[in-house]
Structures are given as C-alpha cells and as structure tokens.
C-alpha cells in the first residue's frame, strides 16, 4: 500500500496499518489485500459475484469488523455485494468505509451493496464513511445501497457520512423492521462545486412497536445539489421520526421530500425538515468570540455535520 492508499484507509476506517488483528477485509482497487477472522466472525468471498459474506455467530459480543474499500486508480468501477448475517444476541461494531482517490478525467467509482440480515435481540452499530480525494477534474462516483432486515427486538444504529469530494452519488437505504426492532440512522452529507447527491430512505415498520429515527444533516455549497427523499410506512403500532436539516451556502440547492404513510391506527409518524443558510446570529456570536466570518462558518458546519 502506498502513502495515499494508507491515508484513505485511515480516513475511512480509522485504521492506521495493515495487517491488523480482529475481523477485517481490506479491498484495494478491486482486489483483496488483507483478511482476518475470529472465532465469532467469519468472512468468506462470494462465489457467484464480487463481494463477501460476513457471518457473525450467536452470542458474539464486544467485537468489531472492519471492511474498508479503497479505489486509488482512475477508471476503476468497482461493484461489490457484501452480506452480513448477524445471528441472535449479538453486540458488534461494523465499520465499512469507502475511499476513492483519483486524478485525471476518467470516472472512478464504487458501488457497495450492503445487506444486513439481523436476527433477534441483537445490537449492531454500523459506521460507514465515504470519502473522495484527488483533483477537481476527476469524477468520483459512489452509489451505496444498504438493505436492512431487522429481526425482533434488534437494534441497528447506522452512522453514515459523505463529506465532500464525491461528484455524483445516489444513496439508497431500505429497511424492514420486525416487532420491537429499532433503527437509528444518522446521516451527514457535504457537497460542493457541482456535486450531485440523492439520498433515499425507505423504511417499512412491519412489526408491533417497531421504531425508526432518521436524522439527516446536510450542507450544500458551491453549485452543488442535494435531494433527500424519505418514505416511511407504518403497518403496525409503531413510531417513526424523520428529521432533515440542511444548510445551504453560495448557490447550493437542497430539496427534501418527505413521505409518511400510516397504515395502522396506532402508527405515529413525524417528519421535520428545515433548510436555510447559517443563522446570522450564530455567525455574530462566534465573531464576538474572535473568529472571522469564514472561520465562524467553518466551525458551525463542522459541528453541524459531526
């Protein structure tokens, strides 16, 4: 791995070196470069297509799996299918980062299709970071898809971020929740220049007392354009809350389309959206503390997307 590749690895996975202990699978320019498994977590390459199956055994607790993907050549269009089979009574952290560094004019990208099959009474924290690096000419495209089947009384906390450098991106998250299941999604997006991002959340609240909370915070700068679409369907006594908070600056555009469908008398669904530029008062406050306008805006945005 060269310096740039190491830098991306660090950015997307908070890992500093390969090889590492613990369960992991590192993919560089479409090839496997390192894999580790543990007693509770096994990783196997798929036979029929690109990608891996990650098996997490019943009762596995306090373990983590890192599966970073690095694309450092221009013109690489990587598409992988990663399936996570999480059995019952599990408590793990999954870190799946994807970094694309490329220069030059041909487009590079990565489409990761991640599917979570989560059993009963399990708790998974899933952290996903998308990073684009390189000069402005190059196109970097990332189209992640996340499919979630969440079993009874299980919890999935998904923290996903894409903070700049990705030219074009369609992000899709689909989830179906069984009885008592809880899905918490925290998304942070930053776009600039001419970037285009569309992010979609389709959540089916099938089971009684299932619950979803989506908080999406986005900043659109330059002439970038973001579209947020959510579709939450409550088919049982359930709770759903979607919050879309956007900051626009320069000529950035954000659109937010909420759809909430209550198909059960005890479904309780809420959608909140607020889009606007940074509050004048917030900038003034930080200026009274000695920051100039640009520094103030930067601090506000860093905090907002954290």
């Amino acid at each position, binding site marked *: 791995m060269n310096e740039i590749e190491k830098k991306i690895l660090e950015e997307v996975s908070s890992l500093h070196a390969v090889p590492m202990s613990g369960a992991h699978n590192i993919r560089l320019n479409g090839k496997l470069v390192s894999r580790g498994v543990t007693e509770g977590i096994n990783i196997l390459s798929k036979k029929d297509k690109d990608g891996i199956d990650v098996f997490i055994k019943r009762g596995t607790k306090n373990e983590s799996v890192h599966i970073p993907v690095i694309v450092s050549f221009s013109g690489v269009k990587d598409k992988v299918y990663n399936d996570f089979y999480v059995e019952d009574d599990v408590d793990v952290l999954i870190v799946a980062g994807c970094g694309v560094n490329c220069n030059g004019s041909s487009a590079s990208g990565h489409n990761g299709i991640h599917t979570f099959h989560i059993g009963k009474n399990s708790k998974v924290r899933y952290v996903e970071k998308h990073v684009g690096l390189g000069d402005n000419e190059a196109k970097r495209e990332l189209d992640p898809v996340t499919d979630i089947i969440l079993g009874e009384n299980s919890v999935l906390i998904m923290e996903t971020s894409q903070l700049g450098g990705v030219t074009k991106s369609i992000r899709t998250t689909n989830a179906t929740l069984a009885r008592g299941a809880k899905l918490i999604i925290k998304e942070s997006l930053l776009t600039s220049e001419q970037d285009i991002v569309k992010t979609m959340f389709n959540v089916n609240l099938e089971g009684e007392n299932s619950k979803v909370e989506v908080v999406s*915070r986005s900043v659109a700068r330059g002439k970038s354009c973001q579209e947020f679409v959510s579709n939450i369907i409550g088919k049982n006594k359930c709770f759903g809350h979607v919050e879309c*908070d956007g900051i626009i600056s320069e000529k950035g555009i954000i659109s937010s389309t909420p759809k909430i469908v209550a198909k059960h008398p005890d479904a309780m669904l809420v959608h909140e959206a607020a889009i606007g530029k940074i*509050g004048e*008062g*917030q900038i*003034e*406050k*930080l*200026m*009274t*503390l*000695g*920051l*100039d*306008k640009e520094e103030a805006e930067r*601090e*506000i945005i*860093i*905090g*907002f*997307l*954290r």
Partner: protein
Amino acid sequence: MLELQNVCYEIVVNNKKKKILDDISFKVDDKQLVVLTGPNGSGKSTLSKIIMGILVPSSGKILYNGKDITRLSITERAKLGLSFAFQQPVTFKGLKVKDLIDIASKKKNSVINACDYLSRVGLCAREYIDRDLDSKLSGGELKRIELALILAKNGELNICDEPEAGIDLWSFDALIKLFKEEDKTFLVVSHQRRLIEIASKVILLSRGKIEAEGSYEDLKEKLSSQICDRLEEGNE
C-alpha cells in the same frame, strides 16, 4: 477605556425614518462597572450591539482606548478585547459547550479548565461540558453559559445584556460578584437593584436618549420606578 460620541441609530420602517438612538455620549473608565438601565424598548440592546459592532450607527463615533473603532468589524473589536453576552443567547446544532469555551479562550482546554468557567457561573460543570449548546438547554442555563464564555474569552471590556434574565434571583446574587471581583471593565444592561447599587455609574436610557447618568445615589429617585426589587421581596 470606552467613549461614545453623539451616537445615533436610525432605521426605516414603512418608508418612515425612526430614530432608535438619539445623540448618545458617555464614557466608561477602566475597571468600572457601568449599568445601563431603562424601560423596555428604550434602546439598551441596540446600544450594546452598536458598541460590539453587531449594528453600525447612523452617525457618531465610538472610541476604545482612544482608538476610533466605529468602522471595525465584530471580529476586530473582539480581538481588541471586547466581549459580548447576548440578551437572547444564540444556540447551535452540533457545537458543544466545550467547543464554544475552546473557541472563546483560543485553546483546547482540559476538562478541568473548561469546567472551572462553568463552575464560576454556578453550573455543575461536568453535566454541561459535553452537551450541545442547543435549545434543549433551559433559558437560565443558556444565560449562565453565555457568561461562562465571557470569562473564557477573558476580554478587557465585557458587555452583558440583561445577564439576570432567566436566572433565579438567589443565584444571581452570587453572580453579581463576577462583575465586581473580576479585574475587568463591565458594561451591563440590567434592571437589578443589587447590581445598580454597586455600579460605578448608572446610565438611564429612555426612548433612545440618555435621561440621566450618575451614581446610584444621584439617580435614586429617577430610578425608583425602574429597578427590579424582587430580590429583596423574595428574601423576606
């Protein structure tokens, strides 16, 4: 330390000029505690914001340590040593109390250090340091944090707009010490008798004009209708 010369502030409402501040001149000397008081709408917040640079006067001059700062930005004034506590504290999404303390003091504080500022304004620091500075904090908590930021910034001239608002009167008594004991200059907008009594000077504003200026003794009669007496009543 601070001198205002003939400061006026006009706005245009429905095509008509409205004078919010009319020919304001006064001085604040080094290490003084000056209290600015007056009825609602008399122009106290407007005047404070003009001194900090948040609003620009229509005419008149502001001198700070002899230097004309009338055209300086908020940032430039902050760097010269002015600090400001808002009447309505500003909230953020995602910035933590500790982040603001670090920004104000221009360094990464240790938790102990950061907690010290909060303790001095009567907050049980550990509970607050990691909280977002957002509207989930109560009004009184926000006002105290606003003061803690003034302490963290360690400016020479501290302008505080109604620091007592939302703070229970018993603990305000303890806060008053801050304005007197700190080795700094304070210009405080207030209706609190306790604060007015210990002020080096009181300025009474009425309909955008200075109606009276002097010590508490000098202004006692004029002020009697102005000040908030509830503290004494509360203690009885």
